[in-house]
């Protein structure tokens, strides 16, 4: 994905970050990615923003089940149990 093979730029970091965090970058590219972070504070902060984003999204509660849906489903469950 990197245009040249000796470094990645900031504009490439923001596209590779998910592959990096998911550990699906090929070893060589992961190394270039980390090398870039060693000298670019802006990208360190960007990656940190993505990590914060993932953490924030992780704190979202699953959607609440509306009470009437819950009671309908429980009725269905009881019927199923009886059958």
């Amino acid at each position, binding site marked *: 994905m990197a245009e040249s093979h000796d470094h990645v730029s900031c504009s*490439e970091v923001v596209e590779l*970050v998910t592959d990096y965090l998911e550990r699906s970058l090929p070893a060589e590219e992961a190394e270039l990615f980390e090398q870039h972070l060693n000298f670019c504070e802006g990208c360190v902060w960007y990656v940190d*923003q*993505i990590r914060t984003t993932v953490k924030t999204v992780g704190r*979202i509660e*699953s959607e609440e089940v509306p009470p009437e849906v819950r009671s309908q489903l429980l009725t269905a469950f009881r019927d199923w149990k009886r059958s």
Partner: protein
Amino acid sequence: MTDAPLKERTASAEEVEFLARLRAGDERAFEALVDRHYGTMLAVARTYVSSRAVAEEVVQEAWLGVLKGLDGFEARSSLATWIMRIVANIAKTRGVREARTVPYASLAPEGEEAAVEWERFRGPGDAFPGHWRAYPANWNSIPEEVLHERDSLRVAMAAIAELPPAQRAVITMRDVQGCGPDEVCAALEVSDGNQRVLLHRARSRVRAALERHFDG
């Protein structure tokens, strides 16, 4: 980057035990199951049908399918994957009837989408092409209480609600529910590479929304 199908996880020992409780008719177990999967089921259904109302009907129907199949479920996949496949199948049929099938291929990411606006990077004529014009903010300097306040959660939720359906389904499964990539691939029938692209786009958009919120 490999795009080979992921090896699908089978049900865990914990799940097998949970399954036994369900089959024995344990209502608390069933409610826990409903609570855990309802939101994701809606998100998956929405990738195939046009409205939230239809998606809710699909999810109701899917629960009946789950009950019908429970005794025969062989735990070769995780419970979540199995449930999401039931949702997807019903939603697809419904989508066809609605004559608004989301054509199959469209669950795959479409076109190009930049994680960050190109204007924020230096151009090709610059001494440092592709380098930030101005660095993104250091969120470590934001006080914890601001980072964790309900407002930021609301911003993230609103951003997720605005996402294209496939991105919404993937980020809901991966980051809200904590499902593995294998479960997403199985439920949405997308390749591992595609689920990663969808996750990337979704996270990038939510990050941008949070950035607007924090940095004003």
